[in-house]
């Protein structure tokens, strides 16, 4: 404490992907500020896509260059195997989602205008568009990248907010059904803020316990510090609340259906894929790096949460009548399956590797499929915009067999039918779980997925086995972007379902260099 503060060392090379994304976001803001309206989207789109691609390239280069073994930026950010893998995943998914978003059709002309009011008309007439969407999205993505890489709880908190705040806004920007959209935004915002408060308080308590917010230090303290267990336990629990909220685990899943339903579908797609991946990355890091020594305590707790999540997700989805809500509940259920993977992390290197790689693979597989599914949802429209109500999907198989076929394929992947990516995802996680003696959990998971299969199958029945309604929705000719999204997603689902080996290897190597402590 001699008053001199030495400048922190920052490994810019390691953080390059992050910096690129955030940089692009800021540039985007500047574009909003200075570029003329008619130019903006023309600038934004390439900017966004290129920066995402660039970031991805950098991440790959990083991985090729050899995964570093000590955290960067004074231990604030850990760019290790899993982090890089997750980065790659998120960047691709984000890229794909951008292709969806590019279809401005989804977003309101001027969010400030009251629905049905004159100025909205006006906005529509002059084809106003919220090009802010792009910078917002970039910020969100940046947060997603930072969140799983955050090596201390403060950074984690900041990343959490950076990721969430733009999303809150994006939720409210739907062009159609604006009431729902805005409601979704409010709900997401209030609940998000609420839960992040819990996260923060948990951080505080852990800080009080360990005297530091660095995960590694906390883990160290677990062994040494004594007598303050209550502090520790409550802190860990509240921290857990924040994280579990983001992945939508029961009993913190309530927001998911509402938000997924209300938000513009492309945003939903991003949340359902990117946010989930990021949140799981963070969850793993916190629980594995920060509370690794405490696993005897958190494993049983997560056990319960996982079971609850799978059951609630599967059961509630059965009676849904809104396609997006149904997908939301299905993503809750999948969150439960993923939690099995978290629980399956064990003590030996091998166990962790298998569990971790399984988890990572599942995230990739699920991410692609879910983006694809939502992309299909954007294409099925009638007068009132996207046709969400399932009854409107009746007989789609006759109207446009190809699209219905692809969607059915995605659903089968969700259900985990062999020769789809979903199957291997489930398999990898179940395998790991059985290896680490979590067989009962697996059995419950299996039963849950049997129940879940029901509502996926139900949609297929609607699309193929029942006759189309007279005024049924029409399938819009997809914009090039959307078509590409669906194509990529379908391709990924097939390839990962038939020959998952390469991705598995990738995940394996990523998982081998465990989270750096």
């Amino acid at each position: 404490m001699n008053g001199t503060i030495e400048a922190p060392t920052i490994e810019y090379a390691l953080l390059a992907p992050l910096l690129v994304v955030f940089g692009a976001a800021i540039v985007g803001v500047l574009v909003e500020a200075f570029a003329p309206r008619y130019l903006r989207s023309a600038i934004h789109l390439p900017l966004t896509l290129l920066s995402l691609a660039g970031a991805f390239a950098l991440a790959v280069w990083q991985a090729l260059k050899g995964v570093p073994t000590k955290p960067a930026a004074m231990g604030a950010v850990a760019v290790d195997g899993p982090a890089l893998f997750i980065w790659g995943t998120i960047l691709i998914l984000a890229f794909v989602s951008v292709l969806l978003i590019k279809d401005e059709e989804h977003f309101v002309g001027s969010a400030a205008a009251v629905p049905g009011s004159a100025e909205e008309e006006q906005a529509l007439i002059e084809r106003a568009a919220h090009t802010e969407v792009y910078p917002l999205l970039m910020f969100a993505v940046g947060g997603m990248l930072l969140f799983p890489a955050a090596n201390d709880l403060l950074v984690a908190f900041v990343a959490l907010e950076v990721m969430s705040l733009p999303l809150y806004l994006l939720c409210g920007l739907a062009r159609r059904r604006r009431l729902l959209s805005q409601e979704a935004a409010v709900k997401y915002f209030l609940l998000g803020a609420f839960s992040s408060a819990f996260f923060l308080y948990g951080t505080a308590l852990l800080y009080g316990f360990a005297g530091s917010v660095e995960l590694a230090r906390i883990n160290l303290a677990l062994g040494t510090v004594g007598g303050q267990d209550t502090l520790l336990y409550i802190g860990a629990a509240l921290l857990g609340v924040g994280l579990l909220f983001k992945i939508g685990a029961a009993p913190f899943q309530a927001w998911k259906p509402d938000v997924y339903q209300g938000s513009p579908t492309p945003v939903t797609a991003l949340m359902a894929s990117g946010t989930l991946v990021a949140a799981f990355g963070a969850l793993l890091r916190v629980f594995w790096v920060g509370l690794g020594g405490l696993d005897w305590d958190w494993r049983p707790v997560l056990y319960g949460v996982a079971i609850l999540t799978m059951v609630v997700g599967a059961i509630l989805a059965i009676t849904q009548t809104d396609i997006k809500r149904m997908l939301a509940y299905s993503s809750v259920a999948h969150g439960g399956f993923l939690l099995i993977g978290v629980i399956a992390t064990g003590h030996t290197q091998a166990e962790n590797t298998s569990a971790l790689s399984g988890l990572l693979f599942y995230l990739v597989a699920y991410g692609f499929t879910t983006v694809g599914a939502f992309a299909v949802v954007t294409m099925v429209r009638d007068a009132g915009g996207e046709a969400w109500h399932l009854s409107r999907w009746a007989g789609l198989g006759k109207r446009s067999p190809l699209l219905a076929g692809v969607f059915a394929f995605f659903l089968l992947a969700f259900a985990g039918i062999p020769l789809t990516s979903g199957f291997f995802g489930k398999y990898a996680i179940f395998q790991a779980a059985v290896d680490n003696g979590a067989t009962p959990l697996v059995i419950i998971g299996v039963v849950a997925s049997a129940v879940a299969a029901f509502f996926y199958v139900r949609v297929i029945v609607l699309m193929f086995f029942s006759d189309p309604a007279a005024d049924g929705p029409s399938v819009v000719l997809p914009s090039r972007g959307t078509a590409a999204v669906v194509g990529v997603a379908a391709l990924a689902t097939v390839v990962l379902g038939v020959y998952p080996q390469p991705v598995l290897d990738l995940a394996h190597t990523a998982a081998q260099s465990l989270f750096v402590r």
Partner: protein
Amino acid sequence: MEPAEIIQHSGGAIGAAWLMIALPLVGAAVLLLGGRRTDKFGHLLGVLMAVASFVVAALSFAQLLGFAPGERRRGIELYEFIPGLAKVGLLVDPLSISFCLLITFVGSLIHIYSIGYMAHDPNRRRFFAYLNLFVAAMLLLVLADNYVALFVGWEGVGLASYLLIGFWQHKPSAATAAKKAFIVNRVGDFGLLLGIFTIFATFHTLAFSDVLGNASKASSGTLTAIGLLLLVGACGKSAQLPLQSWLLDAMEGPTPVSALIHAATMVTAGVYLIVRSGPIFQGAETAQLVVTIVGVATLLAGAIIGTAKDDIKKALAGSTMSQIGYMVLAAGVGPVGYAFAIAHLITHGFFKADMFLGAGSVMHAMNDEVDMRKYGALRKVMPLTFWTFLIGYLAIIGFPLLSGYFTKDGIIEVAMEHNAILGWLAVIGAGITGFYMSRLVFMTFFGAKRWEPTAHPHESPAVMTVPLIVLSIGAIVLGWFLIMGNRFMTFLAPAVGAPEEMPAFHPFSVPGLATLALVAIGAAYAWMKYGRAEVPAVAPRGSFLTTFARRDLYGDALNEALFMRPGQWLTRLAVFFDNRGVDGLVNGLAAGIGGTSGRLRRVQTGFVRSYALSIFLGAAVLAGAWLVVGNL
């Protein structure tokens, strides 16, 4: 004296014995697959095949006689049927060859007869196809050298019988009768199958040579079990109590069928089975006793039923039952009885076929009227039919020097030796036979005309009468020929064994005379009641006993009460249980989950504050749980 060893044989007519089966089989195949194309010559082909296989049988017989008695059991390897379970081969020995001769000879005659009888039936071709099929199956049954092949033939004749009983399938009664026959037979097969399983479990082989040769080594308990199970099979096929009920309904079939299958050949398969499996029964006292009892019971039951039937064919069917009862009785007695059983079987084959065809000829004349009360005084109109029928009649009641006299009395004799009670019961049976057969003859050929106005009886064409004549000749001479000097017993001995000293034939024994007396009485009573007296056009209500007999001793009623109704009830119950119970459980589970979901989703009220509450409580629970777990 024990049965002789089986000698593997090849060459000669016996070597080609399989042709006996193959020829009619080919005939059937051609006629069935050929379809309408073969309509023109179908019947001729059928006859040809039957006759051809008779020729083969005769030649084989001749060749067999060429061997010394001890070498008259010839086995012919055919091919491996079920690897590890059974090879298929033929066994040509005195027993099987006698059957072959009977089947092919009577069979051929009936084929010929059918040309005339079925002349006007559009489906005559199919009829001949089925007849050929039957002949083939029946020959396989008797020629098989193991139990599996025997069973194949066994079921084959069952099938043929099913097809032929139901030949006029558009008549519901015929269809039902056919189905009934098959199912009741299946009950018998159930026993036979179990018998075969037991045999295999005991000996790990099903070949007659191995099984029967080593039967003595098996425990008497096992043998009894096998014996009884085989008996069940025999009862089914030979319409013995308690599986007799199908035979009377089987008369729905065309008359030649009744003559060939339900009188001369198929129904005697049970007797064949028992005789063939002799060594097993000889090792099982109890089984033998049961066999004899069944025989006697059936012979009485059949006779009683015969007394009350007005349907000429049913009356004859009753007598068939009863006559087979005699055979079974004899077969149950053991080696002494075997010869008589088979001899009676053969003679019966002749005279009963003769009478059935005669009845057919009558029906043919009276445009398919079967009610004897509408007959009468036909002897003038159709003399040939009458005389041949008369011979058959005299043969069956055992009129001295006709074949029935020798064979049936022979059976009564041995039965008497074996067990007096059974013997006397058999005698009584003979008496009743005398009554009901006379009744039948008087009602049909004597007395006043009671014809329907539309009826214009006439003698049948030669193609039908010639077989009658041939058969009646057989009915006259065969008995004497077979029994005198124990000719048949000695011939059969190598196949089935024989008692040490041959029984001498003495015509004037007490039972013999008693039989004659009773038969005479029965005939006389019949004369008074149906010959002299007027026969009412409609049957009088009659005493309880009469109804008892008319209703087939309530056999059907019993089956219905015991099996059919409970069965139907059980079926309904099972179906209900399956839909409501098993399937209900499955659907109920699904519905349950759905319901839970429906209720649970109400928790999602849509109020953000309730969500916040769930988070809040969730956090509390989480922390609590963690504390609990942590402090464990």
